[in-house]
């Protein structure tokens, strides 16, 4: 399949990624090429074997559910731009200021 410029704009919107108008033609062409390339998997019969193999995978090792202190080596006050009364202070966003 071939991706259109509109498709790429829609995906960029989903990914919360601003793309300059000027970059869109080249980006669309590159993304379309990548998607066309990986689409070769369409032709592969992966059958039902894959699920069988998955069932044999070793279980993930788990640890006991114990609450432990965060392992910070530096106090948050030393790396946060602003930290007051136990909370990080961040710049107010313009849109929120109006509310």
């Amino acid at each position: 399949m071939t991706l259109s410029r509109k498709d790429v704009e829609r995906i960029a919107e989903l990914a919360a990624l601003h793309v300059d108008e000027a970059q869109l033609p080249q980006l669309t062409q590159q993304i379309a090429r990548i998607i066309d390339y990986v689409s070769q998997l369409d032709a592969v019969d992966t059958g039902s074997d894959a699920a069988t193999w998955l069932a044999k995978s070793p279980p993930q090792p788990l640890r006991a559910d114990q609450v432990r202190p965060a392992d910070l080596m530096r106090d948050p006050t030393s790396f946060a731009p602003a930290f007051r009364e136990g909370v990080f202070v961040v710049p107010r966003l313009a849109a929120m200021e109006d509310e």
Partner: protein
Amino acid sequence: MTALVERAREAADRIEAVERRGLHAVLAFDRTVLLEQATKLDAAPTDGALKGLVIGVKDNIATLEYPTTCGSRILEGYRSPYEATAIKRLKQAGALIACKTNLDEFAMGSSTEHSAFGRTRHPEQPDLVPGGSSGGSAALVAAGAVDAALGSETGGSVRQPAAFCGIVGIKPTYGRVSRYGLVAFGSSLDQIGACGPDVQTASRVLCAISGRDPHDATSADLPPLELPEFPDDLQGFTIGVPEEYFPDDLDAGVRAGCGRAIARMRDAGATISPVSLPHTGLAIPTYYILAPAEASSNLARYDGVRYGPRYAPPEGDVQAMYRATRGVGFGPEVRRRIIVGTYVLSAGYYDAYYRKALRARWLIARDFEKLFAGGVDLLFTPAAPTTAFRAGEKLEDPIAMYLADVFSCPANLAWVTAMSMPVGRAGGLPIGGQFIGPQFGEARMLQAASVLERLVDPAAEAR
């Protein structure tokens, strides 16, 4: 001045010298930080296995001494509040953390040209690339500026630059080394790996950073790897040579170098067995669906709130701020991969791409499993299809760049261990040979590599 501090001072001189010459392998270095570590180590002597070893660290691994930027504007100046388990273990073993090394942005690339802070040069020919994404680590080791380095692997990012630069690079089995403190790219593929000038040094670094870590639920429940005894020959080793890794269009020099290495291993007592990994051809398309999918999810956190400088448009809501921040903060290759990853995970395409690729991954992994269960100890292949290529050559053609990983990414997809080592030269440039071993089969792989290292002259032209 003690011998240890003198050693650190000499390393500092070497790092500054190679950077002055324009290698650009280093993103952060402060000689005072290095000398302080050496002084401290002197004051509290350790008999650690890596005592005094000077190590460069890829800049996507969290350190307290230096910022961790991932080669990205979006993390410029970011200082981690904690350090990676691998770093903690290196220090416990007596190693000195010298500097942070350059990389493709968020480890996405095969040439270290995608760093937001400028490309790393090849240590021998500056107009060539050192490979990537751990190009800074490999170049710095090859230039002799540090004793060893940490890199990270998602699809070959330690082995391919190791091959291009003529050093040893090890990708451990998935789960062998803790990922705690390794900035996530493709979480089901990522592993921290070791770079060294020789098999022994890289192996020692790997052993020091390995072992179960409660901070990483995907780390295997195994003790640290112990340095194996290095044998005199390859009696008892069955080494498979997969036909799919020697295609007709393989670079002639790479073919000759690997062919010579195989002949030497046979002479040293190994049983060489032609084998097949029939799903090898699926690896690149599978990888370039799964890795971007995981990346698009992992990199969602860089939004100007949780991480990164904020670029807020004068008008607009919080979504506009996210978009602007990410649009400015990410470079072209990261943007491409986020868009591809978002696409293959989006409604209507998930089954056709992501789920299909997951199933293809099982087929690729099963190829390896069958061979190793059938009596093959190790596989031997080229680490990369060519020697180092010219800077800029593949920059505008993502598919051409992706194909540089064709021989390396199958091992990541299959969760097995692999390593690259120099096996000669073609046209004056290093050729990388690759061993691939079964899951947690590092010891036997390192043994075979140590023997091959003695059998081949890495400086000899392959014909």
